[in-house]
């Protein structure tokens, strides 16, 4: 990943704090985009670049925690580093449970923030890689016929061909052909591998 692409987003309503964060992050050679409120961040047109979010907990309107929730709701996965003037333990726990990278109390040591940013960026790039792999698996899954999509969860669930034939009201031979196509299309060398793929793409589980 190139440095120009990677961006650290900062949301803090306090202009001095916001400016100092920008200054600090820029001084380590990272690109920074700063926002005064959660709404401003949400409505901005951001490039889908690797990055992380330095987020103040207390904000006018939508709070930092609200923003975290909102981002999760719309499947925007961006590592978040919370900063707060007076963080308490319940708030910290809530933030961390929701996947925050770090929770820093102001004033914090610059290195702690920069380390957290670094960690977050790594986590983001890793996540991005994983997301890319799943995308590939999903596109393979898209190639399956409807019948094959029915057969796959039953295979993953560990049913025998005979059982699958009964389940689908089909013949054992036909099931065997479907199984072969699924393994081929999903590029699974073994049933175990197919199970792993299914888990990653989150394919539907068979109806009980």
């Amino acid at each position, binding site marked *: 990943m190139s440095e120009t692409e990677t961006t650290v987003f900062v949301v803090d309503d306090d202009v001095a704090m916001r400016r*100092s964060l920008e*200054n*600090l992050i*820029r001084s380590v050679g990272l690109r920074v985009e700063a926002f005064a409120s959660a709404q401003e961040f949400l409505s901005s047109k951001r490039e889908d670049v690797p990055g992380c979010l330095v987020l103040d907990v207390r*904000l006018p309107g939508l709070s930092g925690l609200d923003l975290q929730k909102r981002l999760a709701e719309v499947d925007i996965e961006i590592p978040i580093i919370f900063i707060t003037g*007076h963080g308490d333990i319940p708030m910290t726990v809530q933030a961390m449970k929701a996947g925050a990278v770090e929770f820093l109390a102001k*004033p*914090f040591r610059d290195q702690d923030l920069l380390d957290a940013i670094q960690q977050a960026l790594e986590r983001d790039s890793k996540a991005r890689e994983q997301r890319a792999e799943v995308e590939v698996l999903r596109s393979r899954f898209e190639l399956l016929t409807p019948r094959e999509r029915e057969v796959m969860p039953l295979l993953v669930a560990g049913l025998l061909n005979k059982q699958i034939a009964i389940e689908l009201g089909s013949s054992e031979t036909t099931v065997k052909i479907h199984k072969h196509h699924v393994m081929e299309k999903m590029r699974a060398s073994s049933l175990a591998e197919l199970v792993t793929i299914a888990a990653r793409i989150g394919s539907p589980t068979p109806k009980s």
Partner: protein
Amino acid sequence: MKQTIDEIRRLRGCINDLISVQALPAMWTGQEPAQIVSTLLDVLIGMLRLDFAYARLKDPAGESPIEMLRLPQSRNLTASPQTIGHVLQPWLEDAPQKWPVLVRNPIGDGDVSIMPLRLGLRDKIGVIVAGSQRADFPGETERLLLSVAANQAAIGLQEARLLSEQKRVAEELDQRVAERTSELLAANEQLEKEIAERMQAEQKLRRSEAYLAEAQRLTHTGSFARNVAAGKLTESSEQHSLTHSSDEHSRLYGFDPERGIPSSEEFRQRIHPEDRDGALEKFERAVAERTDVEVDFRTVLPDGTIKNLHAISHPVVNTAGDLVEYVGTVMDVTDRKQAEETLRRSEAYLAEAQRLTHTGSWALNVATGEPTHSSEEHLRLLGFDPEKDKPSEVEFRQRVHPDDRESVVETMDKAIGERTDFEADFRVLLPDGTIKYLHAIGHPVINAAGDLVEYMGTSWDVTERKRTEEALLKAQSELAHVTRVATLGEMTASISHEINQPLGAMVNNANACLRWLAASKLEEARQSAMLIAADGYRAGEIVARIRALARKAPPRKDWLDINKTIQEVITLTRSEVQGNHVSLKTRLGRNVPPILGDRIQLQQVLLNLIMNAIEAMRGVDEYLPRELWVDSEEVESTDVLIAVRDSGPGLDAETLDRLFETFYTTKPEGLGMGLPISRSIIEAHGGRLWATANASHTGAVFQFTLPISERAS
């Protein structure tokens, strides 16, 4: 024969003459003696052919005698009776000589024979003298005739005289009767007049007595007279018995006036036992000294009524200098006594009330400028002794504190000039150095003619109140400080956040600066250093504001821009606003005039209202807007209106009612002091603070006004 015939004729003639003479008295009846004599003389001269007939009649009253003379008419002779009288004088004296027969003829030549005829015993009546030149005179028949005539005349004259006497007596009697009658008439008239006058006087007297009785009855005043024998005071009470007791006097003692004057003992018994001896002793002492005396005493009537009487008595001394009696009046003064008592009591109540409330009353004569009334408490308020001092207006005014004197005098004089009420607050400085605060009000008293007569008013001591007010003000100020500190305490978290922000920024910028320096990025390093400086200033400002709020400073008034004050408070509350996800908007009026006020106090009010608004919106659902507006505007160029609105749940009726009550709070941690203190601060600034429901939104509006002061140039 012839002789005989002549003689018969002569005799016959003589008889006729005699009959004529005899008849004379019948003619004379009722005649005067002079007339009788006159006819007699006429008869004699004719009958006897006399040369003269003279009569001299004595006046019974002793006057000069009446003389008469008759002469024969044929001879034309004239002579006065006095001539004959003179000739006959010697025989007419008191002791007459013997009558001669012949006398010289007084009326002719020769001698005449005369014959005197005496009338009555010793010529008592008078004498008649007949004279004739005839020598034979008087013949025998002539003598008879003359003597019969004289007798007849004497009888006639006697009768006439008697008659005349009788007549005179009768006349006299008549006259005396008349005189007496007229005297009696006059006397009668006088008497009638006197009677009339007396009746009138009596009527007058009766009327005046009636008036007096009426007057006595109406005024409850009785009169009495008391018989006192000097030097016998110790004798029986009858010595001092009442000789007069007017009806009302008797009634005052409860006696029926119709029954006459009661005895002294009866009167004595009606005097109240407690007063009896004292009153009587006082009276007797006065009697001994013969002086006027006034006695006050009570009477007890049979029905139990008690009357207060006031008696005045006065000694009456006769010309010999002896004391005769005491007269006097007794007046029923029960009503007056009661009125006096009531008045005395109500005056006492008033004085007591004035004393207890430290309120004095006074009145001032506008014309003379001198006080006409000054209650005891008023004197005491100004440090005078009510027992001794009678200060003049100048002395009163001298007690006013020198710093206040001019304005008080000016206020009073202005009110007097304009006939208006006045009120004044001032201090008095007493001689011992004590200072009192007085509040005085006065109003003009105008008579029916519309003239200003006097000013009356009251002054009361408000020193205690002033001190209480000052103490209250101090307590309020302390309380305000406490709540301010408490508010700051509540805000500690946000305040530390507020300070942490610039501090954190400074740290970040300093670290950034170091990194820029390490990378030799000097421009960036310089920028970072500038940011550090700016953040440092900001932190300093915040600390200063907090210190100002926490400071315990006495109220002071400065000209201030209310919009700036609002901004300062908003800065302080910013983190609280943000922490609660509140959106704060301001709509501050342009060119809002500066107002005179205490910056810290007004900040406290704004802080209070904003914090309350935030607090109110804390429970609002997250998806609903939490909005806070702070507005300012000029209203009718007299006031500045500041409004703090929120979009919270608003105020219910009960809360609205009790909002400004001390210790009323809807917050679990609240003191219930914020709004009452805010209101007292605003009111101390001459403004108003009130709450209403927010009309266009949910939520509440708190508004306050501050008067725009004329800026003193």
